[in-house]
């Protein structure tokens, strides 16, 4: 497919069985992909087919079925490695989700490397999952946790980042795309500034990997965390990408089967990476499902996915900001992914979301696991509409139309 040709959301929706459902008796308008994406038939079929034709536990099975399952599981790993341009499939650790990936680094790397002389740098824009693990690890190790503030226009304060990064900084953990503001951060630049003071860089790719082309080598990131369920894959599978040398040198996180080489009653030695970090029976079928999701996205082309969302969010930004009393948080449409968090004067976000629900429109209301972002804007909660490959301008029109009626009902 050519990259100049746009996506066809109407065609794409036919691949997603959920859009055959009705919500409150109306056609479903799903604007909550930032929380979790819907699943195409291709992903559901790949998983069902594995259960029906190729299911067994992976690794160490001598029989054919286990060999086939192991092959599929490892093929998915290689597929995902290619998708984010990792050097090797050994740099892909399967975990439950981005949260677990970040916790893995926080505990395995953090606890064994950080001292009271060290600093960890995060940003005010982080999802709680890239903040709270560092708070815990800072408390355990005595390391100091510092953060880069958000500018009034919803970007990271790069001057502050420069001031805060210093020779004590051991790790800079930051998001590639805010799940509230939609801000796309300059990842390569931030990684390079972290490296210039000798710090490692961890990128929370939970929002960016599903929506933007990802090249971990171009970023030169040391760690990247992302979740399968936000990129058309199943729940229960996510990825920690880590540079191989770092993974090799880190102690294990969870202990048990598969992660060992040799065990005696007195001790154990560790398996090679990534298996050292994959204790216990992994989410085999979910990994294969994520592989199918990656195939689906690759077929569409990530450049086109991004272009589609960019155009859609620009349209939505214009239409929403034209409504009286609506205020959108974060940067203008040119610097954001397909996320719009907003407040409506005189109408609580819960009421906005509940009203839209009656119209068959699914949006999220609350703090979206990012209370500090909301604090920065002085609001406790927002309503958030987010877009993906199956959304189109009609969805935005219905959202705007319903919002107009909500404003009339609650404030009229």
């Amino acid at each position: 497919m050519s990259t100049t040709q746009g996506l066809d959301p109407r065609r794409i929706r036919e691949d997603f069985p959920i859009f055959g459902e009705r919500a409150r008796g109306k056609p479903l308008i799903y604007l909550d992909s930032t929380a979790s994406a819907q699943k195409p038939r291709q992903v559901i079929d790949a998983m069902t087919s594995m259960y029906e034709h190729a299911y067994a536990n992976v690794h160490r099975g001598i029989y054919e079925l286990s060999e086939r399952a192991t092959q599929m599981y490892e093929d998915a790993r290689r597929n995902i490695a290619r998708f984010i341009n990792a050097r090797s499939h050994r740099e892909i650790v399967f975990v439950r989700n981005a949260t677990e990936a970040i916790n893995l680094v926080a505990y395995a790397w953090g606890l064994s490397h950080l001292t009271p002389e060290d600093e960890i740098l995060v940003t005010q824009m982080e999802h709680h999952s890239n903040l709270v693990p560092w708070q815990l690890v800072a408390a355990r190790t005595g390391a100091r946790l510092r953060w880069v503030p958000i500018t009034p226009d919803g970007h990271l304060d790069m001057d502050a980042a420069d001031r805060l990064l210093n020779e004590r900084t051991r790790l800079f953990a930051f998001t590639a795309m805010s799940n509230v503001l939609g801000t796309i951060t300059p990842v390569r630049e931030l990684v390079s500034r972290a490296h210039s003071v000798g710090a490692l860089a961890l990128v929370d790719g939970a929002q960016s990997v599903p929506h933007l082309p990802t090249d971990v080598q171009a970023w030169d990131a040391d760690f990247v965390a992302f979740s399968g369920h936000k990129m058309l894959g199943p729940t229960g599978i996510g990825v920690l990408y880590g540079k191989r040398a770092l993974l090799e040198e880190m102690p294990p996180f969870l202990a048990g089967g598969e992660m060992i080489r040799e065990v005696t009653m007195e001790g154990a030695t560790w398996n090679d990476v990534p298996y050292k970090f994959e204790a216990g029976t992994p989410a085999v079928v979910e990994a294969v499902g994520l592989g199918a999701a990656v195939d689906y996205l690759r077929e569409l082309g990530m450049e086109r996915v991004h272009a589609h969302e960019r155009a859609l969010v620009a349209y939505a930004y214009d239409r929403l900001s034209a409504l009286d009393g609506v205020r959108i948080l974060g940067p203008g449409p040119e610097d954001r992914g397909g996320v719009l968090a907003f407040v409506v004067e005189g109408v609580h976000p819960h009421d906005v979301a509940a009203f839209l629900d009656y119209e068959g429109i699914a949006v999220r209301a609350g703090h979206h696991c990012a209370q500090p972002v909301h604090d920065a804007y002085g609001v406790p909660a927002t309503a958030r509409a987010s877009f993906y490959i199956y959304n189109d301008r009609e969805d935005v029109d219905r959202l705007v139309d319903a919002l107009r009626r909500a404003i009339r009902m609650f404030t009229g």
Partner: protein
Amino acid sequence: MYDLYAEEILDHYKFPRNRGKMDNPDRVYHDHNPLCGDEVTIMLRIEDGRVKDVKWEGQGCTISMASASMLSEAVKGKSLEELRTWGKEHVLDLLGIPLGPVRLKCALLPLKALKAAVWGLEGTEEHEET
């Protein structure tokens, strides 16, 4: 048109009863729900074991504000003994609508604050399980 936004609920939301300040209240309690930013302060005048007067201030969603407004009307003149027995069902009766778990928290915030105002936090335990 919408269950959740029945005429009466919207009426209490737009024209809240007993909203305002009270001079030297006998009891006052402020509570909030950090998840959505609903907050409410209940002020009580108590005489002979009864609620002589009630005022409240707050901000939040339709459900939490309508609940505070309706509750303020319902508790006037009631004995504290009776109020002690009030719980989730009472609030749902007042609102007259079915609520999911998230909105139930909004609906119960004013009663939780009211009971904490009278009995302290231990009086609120039974409402925590929403």
